[in-house]
């Protein structure tokens, strides 16, 4: 329900037109006219000196203020793989998995939004669970740029009114998604680790759960009075939906037209540099086994012990924030809320107490072995196998025994 104009009071001064962030006001026959793009942000209310604008509060309101909002949207991020090449990022398929479950719970459609990229990529998104793909195929959108991305996604959202929009909590998602939320004057929850529909609420709100307060606790967050409900989701937390090539037949690809105006930007990407040097890369995301160390390692030397163990079992070395802050190991090894989120087959936590901010980055690992001196350490709450003991005794003995087995 848009802002109401009192035709008696309106002087047609046009001052409200410039204040509207959504270009929803125009002057028709010397009176303000509010279009369906009005988001009830109330920005115009304070601008109107004649007091001609109101939100209609106090008058009988419609039963459901969110009528017309439907569908779950996911932003299918593409990542630059080289100076001239890019592809759909893995997080897009995870979002489709999370989105599929929400859409099924809500009885609505799941739509993917793809900027740039090929027709084939759009069809892949259908096979991974989308019912519709909004595809802006203009190759100018291949490379990420905050302003055009934010503008295009907000205008699509204003037009089609999705109930929910999700994006990856990646460098790209975390940079432009807040701009979209600010444009739409709606809420945005960062870094969600779980999403579900509140079946008990009349509005069927989205319950967005994320680590809070430095990751020491989890918080469930709602945006009960606003639509769309927006959230970014941590990569590698959500499970992908089932891949079904048959879905291509029933799914639809909806082309999104873009023009020169939509590409306008005050930022220019001069160069994309992607790391190709494997030695420089700490590939925690793709490692099947991670051997991780924390404050209990007491220094750089402790990490040498972990490197040896990791080398023996073909794993990568991770660390807690405490060890990075101490300067024992570079930041690129850090696992946790302000580092990387991982879910390897096996995670061995050595001398890590397990602050929630570390746990959120690794607790979805298939198997977790925790070794710590303190039997009360919270890391044991998420461990599959807990070992209370001195890592400086246990790891060397473990290394020795593995070597013996190999020798035998």
């Amino acid at each position, binding site marked *: 329900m848009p802002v109401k104009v009192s035709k008696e009071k309106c002087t047609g001064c046009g001052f409200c037109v410039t204040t509207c962030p959504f270009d929803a006001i125009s002057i028709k026959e010397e009176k303000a006219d509010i279009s369906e793009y009005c988001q009830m942000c109330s920005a115009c209310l304070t601008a109107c000196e004649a007091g001609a604008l109101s939100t209609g509060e106090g008058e009988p309101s419609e039963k459901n203020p969110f009528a017309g909002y439907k569908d779950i949207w996911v932003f299918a991020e593409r990542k630059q793989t080289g100076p001239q090449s890019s592809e759909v990022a893995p997080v897009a398929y995870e979002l489709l998995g999370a989105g599929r479950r929400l859409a099924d719970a809500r009885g609505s459609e799941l739509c993917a939004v793809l900027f740039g990229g090929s027709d084939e990529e759009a069809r892949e998104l259908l096979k991974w669970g989308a019912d519709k793909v909004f595809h802006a195929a203009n190759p100018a959108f291949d490379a990420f740029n905050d302003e055009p991305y934010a503008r295009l996604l907000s205008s699509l959202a204003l037009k089609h009114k999705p109930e929910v929009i999700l994006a990856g909590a990646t460098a790209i998602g975390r940079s432009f998604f807040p701009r979209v939320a600010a444009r739409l004057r709606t809420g945005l929850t960062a*870094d969600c680790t779980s999403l579900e529909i509140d079946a008990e609420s009349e509005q069927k709100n989205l319950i967005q759960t994320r680590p809070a307060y430095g990751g020491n606790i989890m918080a469930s967050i709602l945006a009960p009075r606003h639509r769309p409900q927006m959230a970014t989701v941590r990569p590698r937390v959500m499970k992908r939906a089932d891949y079904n090539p048959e879905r291509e037949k029933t799914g639809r690809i909806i082309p999104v037209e873009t023009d020169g105006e939509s590409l306008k930007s005050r*930022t220019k990407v001069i160069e994309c540099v992607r790391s190709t040097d494997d030695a420089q890369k700490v590939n925690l995301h793709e490692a099947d086994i991670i051997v991780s160390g924390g404050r209990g390692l007491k220094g750089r030397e402790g990490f040498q012990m972990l490197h040896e163990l990791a080398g023996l079992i073909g794993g990568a070395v991770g660390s807690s924030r405490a060890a990075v802050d101490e300067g024992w190991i570079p930041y690129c090894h850090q696992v946790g809320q302000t580092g990387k989120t991982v879910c390897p087959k096996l995670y061995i936590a050595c001398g890590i107490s397990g602050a929630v901010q570390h746990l959120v980055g690794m607790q979805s690992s298939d198997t977790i072995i925790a070794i710590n001196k303190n039997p009360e350490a919270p890391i044991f709450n998420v461990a599959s196998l807990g070992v209370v003991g001195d890592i400086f005794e246990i790891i060397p003995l473990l290394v020795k025994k593995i070597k013996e087995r190999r020798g035998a």
Partner: protein
Amino acid sequence: MRIVVCIKQVPDTSEVKINPETGALVREGVPSIINPFDMHAIEAALSIKEQLGSSAACSVCVLTMGPPQAESALREAVSFGVDEAVLVSGREFAGGDTLATSRALSAAISKIGADIIICGKQAIDGDTAQVGPEVAEFLDIPHISYVKKISGISGAVIRAERMMDDGHDVVEAELPCLITVVRELNTPRLPSLKGKMAAKKIEIKKLGLADLGISEEEAGFKGSPTQVKKIFTPSARTGRRMAEGSIEEQVDAIIKELMERKCL
């Protein structure tokens, strides 16, 4: 050239403890600090000012929103060499989410005036990284996130390197522009004696709701779309086993686990 640095006073989350019985946060005795990423934002502003030298009149203003005690964070910023300090304060602002916070900060920045706005990439208590880009959107100016290097500022353009998940981009943006910065950008300086003196004397400018032209409905809890429904500590994994016995036996238990998981 006018630079505004947005900072936040935060509890030192590395010192936070949880009451194991109630699951509640123990806030007593947790020290308040300037958000660590904001220290790099302050340093970035000061080094831009030094590089521009006397060729361009440049001033650095530090801005925060918070309760009256946030003044101490502003004074600390002044001790590093910041010229001015502004505090947005009032009970109406309490409980604001990123949208309400960004709305208030952007209104304050419009009042102060800025060519460059610098924020830390995120605050360590909320970890959302949303306020920077949202402020830029409210001000209708460009932004560059996760800046790890400022290559140059010439005329009305800033060139910077922004960190991406697997590399970096070189980006140019027109001024006025907002940037959010990461640790890799610089090493924050220590306070100077002159700065400490200035920090004691400086008069901190205070802005309230009326000064910013924001209605009560747009500020704080009322102006926040998101609401915290509940807070809890993560649940324990089911089916956990503990390795008992001697060190030998414990290590054997690990090896057995490794073999079962086909990691050996």
